[in-house]
């Protein structure tokens, strides 16, 4: 297999591993029209959501999520469908500032009926898809890869097989100059001191500790006992005993590289190095925040075969155990359970995963992409206020 990375060149030395045309509705009521355009087009993708322009405590977070998602380098172009509220126009402006490759805007106020929007949208989408298909991949540096690390449906083998295998692949990518991002603040609670000790400066280490402490304060405020929720009942049945144990296993995804920084939810990911992003444990909210941060490929380790994917980021499913991997081969891209079966070593599976990440970066379609798992979720911190 070729070890050469190829990708789609964007402005500002950004690189796309896919060349999507994204139809993005900026108001929940436009979701159906966006979906209709994508479904009838020659290969555009769309997401649906529930935001209706609320200006509340989450406004900045939501604006940041949409603009970053639109500007993700995996998008050749984004077609915004808008009713033209100030918040929606701000999203389009910010996406342009983030270096969006190509933006088209369909304004309901100007075009009038939904059928006109759908007709105009389909025409634009098809012409953009044609342009996107005409663009060729060119040789790209390793910094073209921004890898997101995710785990969902953890089991007793997660911390022994799939997570450390991802750690091996992540370390190798970081060493070559790629970016790699660990998320899920919930899942490092109890292991943050170990991650902080791997920060390149004491300040970054302190930031890791503070990010987890901030999260812990917020759940204390809500009166939630994390020790009751984590490890979950399923985790305990599987053999995980304490929160620290689960977190130690989850943190294995980040390998042993040093942490170059801490990112807030949906912050733009720098070109190279290992980072920690403060994301929620909810799989889809975390994936959406990763995409908004410019991450262009994800490895998702799973003990139960979570099907979740993204409309714009290829999401590689790495199974923790052979039983599940054999039961649902249509969801699993690679099985790390072979490590616990004594068939393969951690280094071997880590190497296979590295090769697979490269193949997927070069265009190989993941199971989640084939299954059209285009999940999208906004992450909210506050109650929604309707004004």
């Amino acid at each position, binding site marked *: 297999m070729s070890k050469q990375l190829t990708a789609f060149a964007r402005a500002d030395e950004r690189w796309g591993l896919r060349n999507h045309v994204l139809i993005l509705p900026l108001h929940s009521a436009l979701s159906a029209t966006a979906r209709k355009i994508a479904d009838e087009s020659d290969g555009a993708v769309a997401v649906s959501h529930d935001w209706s322009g609320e200006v509340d405590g989450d406004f900045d977070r939501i604006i940041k999520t949409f603009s970053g998602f639109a500007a993700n380098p995996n998008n050749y172009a984004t077609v915004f469908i808008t009713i033209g509220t100030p918040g929606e126009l701000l999203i389009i402006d910010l996406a342009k500032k983030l270096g969006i490759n190509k933006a088209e805007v369909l304004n309901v106020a100007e075009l009038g009926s939904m059928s006109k929007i759908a007709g105009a949208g389909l025409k634009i989408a098809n012409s953009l898809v044609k342009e996107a298909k005409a663009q060729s991949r060119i040789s790209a540096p390793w910094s073209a890869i921004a890898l997101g690390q995710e785990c969902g449906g953890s*089991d*007793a*083998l997660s*911390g*022994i097989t799939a997570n*450390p295998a991802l*750690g*091996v692949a992540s370390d190798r990518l970081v060493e070559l100059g790629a970016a790699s991002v660990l998320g899920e603040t919930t899942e490092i*609670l*109890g*292991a943050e001191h*170990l991650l902080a000790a791997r920060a390149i400066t004491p300040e970054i280490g302190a930031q890791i500790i503070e990010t987890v402490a901030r999260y812990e304060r917020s*759940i*204390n405020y809500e*009166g*939630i*006992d*994390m*020790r*009751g929720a984590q490890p979950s009942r399923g985790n*305990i049945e*599987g*053999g995980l*005993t*304490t*929160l*620290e*144990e689960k977190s*130690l*296993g989850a943190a*294995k995804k980040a390998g*042993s590289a040093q942490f170059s920084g801490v990112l807030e939810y949906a912050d733009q990911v720098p070109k190279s190095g290992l980072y920690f992003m403060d994301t929620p444990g909810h799989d889809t909210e975390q994936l959406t925040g990763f995409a908004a941060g410019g991450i262009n490929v994800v490895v998702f380790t799973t003990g139960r075969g979570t099907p979740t994917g993204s409309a714009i980021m290829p999401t590689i499913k790495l199974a923790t155990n052979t039983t599940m991997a054999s039961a649902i081969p249509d969801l699993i891209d690679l099985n790390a359970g072979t*490590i*616990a*079966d*004594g068939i393969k*070593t*951690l*280094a071997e599976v880590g190497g296979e995963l590295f090769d697979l990440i490269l193949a997927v970066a070069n265009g190989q379609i993941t199971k989640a992409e084939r299954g059209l798992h285009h999940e999208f979720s906004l992450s909210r911190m506050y109650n929604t206020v309707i004004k």
Partner: protein
Amino acid sequence: MLRILMTDNRKILILNELDNIAVCLVNMEVGEVIRQDALNLTIQNRIPRGHKVATKAIAKDDGIIKYGERMGHATSDIKIGEHVHTHNVLGDRLSTEQVNMEQKN
């Protein structure tokens, strides 16, 4: 990198030489003997696949070490070969309930 040690019979995984527990890769029955190199244990309870077994004697309040790191402490003395789980281990992290109670006191 994580140094994994698996017994030849593929029943037991030791994740780090500092660990006082190992992970069972198959369901273990009482009386089963695992003997390889320095490891010598007789299974004391039925232990389900994926659960932990003590590979060293652990005194009450001693740390439970997995991956070479502390993942909690023993709430009672644990013999070699005993099942190590929620019935004899507690995380070191205070629960929110405890934090709230301490703040009130």
